[in-house]
């Protein structure tokens, strides 16, 4: 590793903590970002000669804060506004930052930084974009590419999201235990969204992978801040398990490979082992939650050496407890897959038919329904279901996968007429 790449790593791993602290001082996202950028520039200039500081995070916060104050003073000369009013606890600029870094309010700094990105007024796509920009420091170019929009459009989207947050007011009061738990829940949901955005990027792996990796990194950060939260362990385990299958999920042409057809030797065993260790630890708390259950389901797939060894009965039971905790037609739809393996296609079809009203616009509903009908030999209905699915596909890989089913049906029909 060269010197510069080491500095790069140090800066990106220090980013959430330093940004969190600077946001607390300046109470303004743009100002905090500028201050952090300035501190990074100075780090790149001085660290190669003087060597890395003993505590890069403290260094970045200290330098960032000074440069932020500097630029506020310059602005104040142009506008007659006393800068102190926009700042908080400036008197301890010389305080022992390194010591305070271990203090628990830094935990709340990072949580706040993540929390402002998932403001309930922001639509999901803006939450994801903002978190990747502010917390992870991905470039607008990278984010725009993954969302398949132009850089200018993404820039505008992020600016608009920041303006909405500023207008809504940032949550600067120190949270009490219940507020902290609420923030943690919102942040966990946002990380899950970031991951899903990458996960569902389909055959376009290059664009999606950084999102998945960032989500896992944020999850690890959260877990280090809150080491005894079983749901955070569950979420981390879930993301690791889903990501462990990355190489097996698509064929060389970018087509979808279903779980049962995947080459399991391509699954990343190191991620799987870590996830299993985390689930083991989480379950000891005897406080099950949606992320832990989903992770436990994913773990049953990961534990099966061959598709035929999958414990569908246990998966069905886990989906049932998930339905109780978090009733949703999508959960029932997923349970139907387990039911089809245990009790056959008809039982699964009976389970999902009542969901039609609520899931009529959902790609996977029609895909699964088509598959079940096909198994039952109801080819004409299967054909209609696949047609609906293909119209709802959001990636070329999804559409191509359904197209295979349709072609398969067509072949069956042709074979049937020649016989």
């Amino acid at each position, binding site marked *: 590793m060269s010197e510069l790449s080491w500095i790069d790593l140090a800066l990106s791993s220090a980013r959430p903590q330093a940004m969190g602290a600077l946001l607390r001082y300046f109470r303004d996202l743009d100002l905090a970002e500028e201050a952090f950028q300035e501190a990074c520039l100075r780090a790149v200039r001085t660290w190669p000669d003087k060597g890395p500081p003993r505590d890069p995070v403290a260094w970045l916060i200290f330098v960032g804060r000074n440069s932020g104050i500097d630029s506020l003073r310059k602005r104040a000369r142009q506008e007659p506004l006393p800068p102190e009013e926009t700042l908080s606890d400036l008197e301890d600029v010389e305080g022992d930052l390194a010591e305070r870094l271990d203090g628990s309010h830094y935990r709340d700094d990072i949580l706040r930084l993540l929390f402002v990105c998932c403001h309930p007024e922001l639509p999901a796509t803006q939450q994801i974009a903002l978190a990747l920009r502010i917390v992870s420091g991905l470039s607008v170019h990278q984010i725009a590419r993954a969302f398949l929009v132009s850089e200018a459009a993404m820039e505008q989207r992020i600016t608009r999201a920041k303006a909405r947050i500023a207008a809504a007011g940032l949550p600067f009061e120190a949270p009490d235990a219940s507020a902290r738990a609420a923030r943690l829940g919102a942040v966990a949901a946002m990380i899950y969204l970031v991951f899903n955005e990458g996960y569902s990027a389909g055959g376009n792996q290059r664009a999606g992978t950084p999102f998945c990796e960032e989500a896992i*990194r944020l999850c690890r950060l959260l877990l*280090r801040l809150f080491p005894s939260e079983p749901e955070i362990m569950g979420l981390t385990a879930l993301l690791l398990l889903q990501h462990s299958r990355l190489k097996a999920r698509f064929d060389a042409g970018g087509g979808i490979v279903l779980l049962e057809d995947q080459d399991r030797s391509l699954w990343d065993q190191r991620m799987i082992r870590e996830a299993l260790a985390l689930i083991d630890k989480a379950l000891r708390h005897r406080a099950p939650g949606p992320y832990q259950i989903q992770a436990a389901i994913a773990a049953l797939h990961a534990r099966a050496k061959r598709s035929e060894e999958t414990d569908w009965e246990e998966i069905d039971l886990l989906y049932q407890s998930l339905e109780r905790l978090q009733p949703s037609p999508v959960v029932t739809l997923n349970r139907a897959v387990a039911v089809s393996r245990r009790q056959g296609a008809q039982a699964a079809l009976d389970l999902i038919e009542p969901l039609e009203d609520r899931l009529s616009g959902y790609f996977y509903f029609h895909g699964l329904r088509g598959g079940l009908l096909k198994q039952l030999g109801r080819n004409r209905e299967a054909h209609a279901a696949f047609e609906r699915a293909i119209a709802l596909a959001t990636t070329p890989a999804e559409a191509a996968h359904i197209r295979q089913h349709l072609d398969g049906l067509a072949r069956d029909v042709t074979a049937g007429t020649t016989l």
Partner: protein
Amino acid sequence: MLYAVLCYNSEDAVAAWSKEEEDKVMSDLAAVERKHAAAGRLGPVARLMPTTAATTLRKAPGESFVVDGPFAETKEQFLGFFVIDMETLDEAIAFAKELAVANPGVGAYEIRPLRVFKPGGALDPL
């Protein structure tokens, strides 16, 4: 004398390695390991999962209690270790220097002579 070479580094920095950086460091370390294994001086080697996977049993009078997370909150974490057989401390330090060349950057190696050593051998390598 048997020595343990204990590896400390910032977990954040190590976790931020890209796949290429990770592979490069691991293959450079493997080269150092091969050399000392060939000389019959290398014992068990272990790399630990992140501290977030750690559980600590804190001993207490009465009943010990279990805590989630690592033994201590520190800036650098204990990430793994090597056991080597060297004549002198200087040779052990030279070994650690080779590791530092293979895995440059920050962090530290603590070199501790062993008092008891049970190599085991019942387990399969990961």
